[in-house]
Structures are given as C-alpha cells and as structure tokens.
C-alpha cells in the first residue's frame, strides 16, 4: 500500500531524513517510533504530499507523491501534529467543510458527518465552537476529519499526544478498530503505544531507520534476552571487558562506570542463553574480585533508548 525508497529530505544544509526505505502492507498498522527530531513528521509530510522529498520516491496505493499528488491526496487521511481545526467553526460545520474539500458528494455529506462524529465520540459537542473544546476533543475532531472520506490510508502524527489516560485508551481502541479497512501509519514517542496498537514498528532516529520488524518479533526477541550487571575489581577496565567478551553466549559488553577501582559492566547475552555462571567463573579464574552479579531485564524501552541514543551510554557515563 505504501512504498518508500531511499527517501531523503534536506532543509537547507540540515538533513531531516536520510535515505529511508520501508513498505507497509494493506490493512497494517505501523508505528513510527523515534525521539524528538527523528524525522517522523517530515516523513509523514512527504507521504501526504504536503512537501516534496529532496531525493527518493514515495508511493501510496501505487501513486507517486510527486507525479500523481491528487490521486495520493484522495486516498489519504491525515492528522497532523496539531489538529488542523478552525476555532471559529462549529464541529459539525468544520467536518462538512473538510468533507466538501475531500470531494464527498453533497447528498452523502450529512450522513458521513454523522457517522464520523459518532465514531470519534464528538457527537455530543457537534454544535459547539471548536475554540471552546478541550485538547482531547479537538484531537478527536482532528481524527474525525482524517477519516471523513473513508481513505485507504490514514496517517496520524502523534494521535494520543496531550490526552488523558482514559482518552488515550479510547483513541487506541478507535485506531485499532479502524485497522483492516484502512492502512495506518502513526507516530509516537511512547513504546507501550506501539506494543498495544501496532502490528509493525519502524524505529527511526536522526533521520535513519535503525530497526523495522513486527511488534511481536521484536518483543519476543527481546523478552528472551537478558542482561547481567557485573562489578569487578583487580584489573583495568579494557582488560576485563576483553575477557568478558570472550565468554561463550555473550553478545555485547558495555562498560558503565568506575568507582575506586570497581568497574561496572553490563553484559548482554544471546537470546535464550544464561551466562551468569560463565561470567562468574571467568572473573574468578582470572584472579579478579567479583563484587556484584545481578540479572537485569532488558525491556523494549531499553532497546529503544539504546537504538536511538545519540551517544553510547558508556561514553555518556564517562564524561
């Protein structure tokens, strides 16, 4: 449904998105996950034909965003970061305005407005001025606006930002219920949101994709994995690290910090391997002192932070 290849966007000399490629199948919900300034909004703006890419191609339902923008726009519903609402309009008036813009025939317009107002739970405020609505209601009006013409593709930029927990829950349910008939891309900073609402996740940071996988794969892959926190004294940090890296089953060793000759490491193991005993033996056999050895669970959160961190945690800790 959506195919992006080698997409690059530069603002002057500043590169916002650097050669990203991904695909989204029909009916999927894909979560765009990344820290501030990662390039999520930029990518979405290119997909919605708000602005053209500097390089690369993006296709929606087989139509190129540069060559056939009208066809793309007809098939896309877009909720920008800030709901694009006119405060001086009533909710109903606004929804019919957007409906007309999207080319809904006037005979069906009233019915469609009713439907989306009902679906996005804004039916009770339909006669209210948008200026007088709370942030949560505005967000829902924004969502109603995005689905009014029943588009094939929905692009939602941080759809739950600024909502209270109950509204977040309702919005996620709504988004889930929209899947199947619509293909959805949503962006977020929040991991559980991806776990709860999306099928696929694309993790993006500083303009590049660092991971893309199904949510199931990613979580199961990470759930089985564990890390061990170790504190060792008796040798220099690089020596210890080298030794730990040689232990069978260890995938990665990260040096944390050093206090009074006591070096802390985090040892990550390959999935399904328990390396605690081997790590302990390696340290003792080298004649060093083992002060602490403790398992730490590696959550999706950690992986996300690790994948997206601007600096390696160890480097940050040393400063």
């Amino acid at each position, binding site marked *: 449904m959506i195919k992006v290849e080698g997409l690059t966007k530069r*603002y002057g000399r500043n590169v916002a998105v650097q050669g990203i490629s991904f695909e989204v199948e029909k009916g999927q919900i894909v979560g765009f996950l990344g820290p501030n300034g990662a390039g999520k909004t930029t990518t979405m*703006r290119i997909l*919605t*034909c*708000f*602005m*053209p890419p500097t390089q690369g191609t993006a296709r929606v339902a087989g139509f190129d965003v540069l060559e056939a923008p*009208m066809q793309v*726009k*007809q098939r*896309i519903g*877009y909720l*920008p*970061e*800030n709901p*694009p*609402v*006119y*405060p*001086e*309009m009533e909710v109903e*008036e606004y929804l019919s*305005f*957007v409906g*007309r*813009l*999207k*080319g809904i025939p006037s005979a069906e317009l009233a019915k469609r407005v009713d439907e989306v107002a009902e679906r996005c739970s804004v039916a009770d405020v339909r006669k209210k001025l948008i200026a007088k609505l709370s942030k949560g209601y505005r967000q829902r009006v924004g969502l109603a*606006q995005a689905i009014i013409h029943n588009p094939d593709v929905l692009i939602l930029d941080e759809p739950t930002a600024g909502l209270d927990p109950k509204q977040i829950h309702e919005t996620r349910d709504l988004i889930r219920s929209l899947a199947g008939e619509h293909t959805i891309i949503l962006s977020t900073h929040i991991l559980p949101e991806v776990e709860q609402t999306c099928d696929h996740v694309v993790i993006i940071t500083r303009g590049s994709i660092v991971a893309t996988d199904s949510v199931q794969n990613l979580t199961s892959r990470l759930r089985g994995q564990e890390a061990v926190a170790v504190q060792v004294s008796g040798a220099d940090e690089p020596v210890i690290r080298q030794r730990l890296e040689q232990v069978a089953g260890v995938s990665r060793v990260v040096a944390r910090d050093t206090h009074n000759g006591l070096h802390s490491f985090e040892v990550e193991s390959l999935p399904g391997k328990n390396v605690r005993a081997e790590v302990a033996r390696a340290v003792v056999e080298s004649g060093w002192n083992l002060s602490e050895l403790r398992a730490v669970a590696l959550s999706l959160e950690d992986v996300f932070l690790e994948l997206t961190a601007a600096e390696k945690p160890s480097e940050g800790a040393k400063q």
Partner: protein
Amino acid sequence: MNNVITICQKELKSYFASPIAYLLMAMFAIVFGFFFWNAVGYFVNVSFQSQAMGRSFPMDVNEMIIRPLLMNVSVIGLFLIPLISMRLFSEEKRSGTIELLLTSPLHDAEIIIGKWLAAVALYGCILLISGLNFFFLFAYGKPDWKPLVIGYLGLVLQAGALLAIGAFVSTLTRNQIIAGSVTFSICLLLWVFEWVAGYETSTWASVMGYMSVVRHFEPFSKGVMDTRDAVYFASMIFLGLFLTARSLESLRWRA
C-alpha cells in the same frame, strides 16, 4: 469550481464570525460618513452662495460630490485592504490548518482564488455602505448614475489588485501584523508614486507614475473607463495571484 466556492464560503464565514468584518464596516461607515457629510455640506453652502449672488450656474452633483467622494473611498480603501488581506494565509500557517488545505485533493489555484474572492466580496460589502449614502443623493437630486457605476467598478478593480498583492504578502509570514504592515506600506507607496511623476520627468519617475494606483483610478472616478487602466488593474491582479501561487509552491519546498 466547487472547491473555489467551498474555500470562499469558509473564508467569508471566518470574516463574519470574528469581529473583523463588522469592525472594518463600522470604521468605514464612520469615516466615509464624515466625508459624505462634509462634501454635501460644502455643496449646499456653495449652491446657496451662488444663488445669493444671483449667479445660478447649474451645480453638477456628479462633479462636485460623487467624484471627490469616490476618490476618498479609494484612499480609505488603501487603509482597509491590508486589514482584510493580512490573515488570508498567515493565519492558516500559524494555526497549522495550511496542512489540511495543502493535503486535500484541490489545486493551489482553487485555494488562492477562493480566498481572494472572499476578500474582494468583503470589500464589496464595505463598499455597499458607501452606496447607501449615495442612494440619498438619488432620493434628493438627479445625478447621472453611469459614472457612479463605473466608479464602483474601478473601486472593485483597485481592491482586487491590492488584495491580490496582500494575499501574496500573507503567504510570506505567519505573523498577521507583519503581513498587514508590509501590505500597508506597499499600498501607500503605490499611492504616493503619483507625486513623483508630478515634478520629475525621468524614466524612473514615469515608471513610478505608471505604477501608481491613483493615476489609474482617477479616470474611473470621473466615469471614464479607459482600457489601459483596466489592463493595469487586471495585470496587477494577475501578478499578485501568480506570485501567491509561486510562494505557496515554494512554501512546500521550504515548509
């Protein structure tokens, strides 16, 4: 075409939903009312005087009231037009609704023309107030109505040209005040360019003179419609809307 109407309707509703439309109309009614009262008072005075002195030359209402008043409206327009055009695009940029417009299946030209038509229509409403005043002249005298119609045509053309330029300026910033001030300066310049042509004869002065809105409006106020003046206004409208379109396009690239 439908899209143009949709945009135009929405824009007009926005004008009338906020106090801006009523405020402009009230401002105009007061200022123009004063000019009107002044002009009529002067006319009556002069008529009495000439009668008292036994000279009864025919007093021309068109020449003595309508023409100067139309010139006044033209000048008041220079002040009102920036206030009408300043929000056209800058407000959409500021609030982010520009994202809705530019990602909906409609052409940039439809957005621009819809908005411009709405602005011209609002100015038309303001002009109607002055029309009301002129209506009294017809109730009490017998002015020629043809020059008046041509005069109004000129006023609408002038507003169309300046509003097109104002629309362009408002695409350049998300700040309404800036958009308004810049447009006002341009309007003012296009007005005072005429003065240079009054005493200078260099090429630059004649170019400035040609650009002057007043010079091209004046014949309309006399009830004379010259194609050269109509062409001037039409090209200004075209230029303004064209620049708006280009600016909207580059907005996408810069966004």
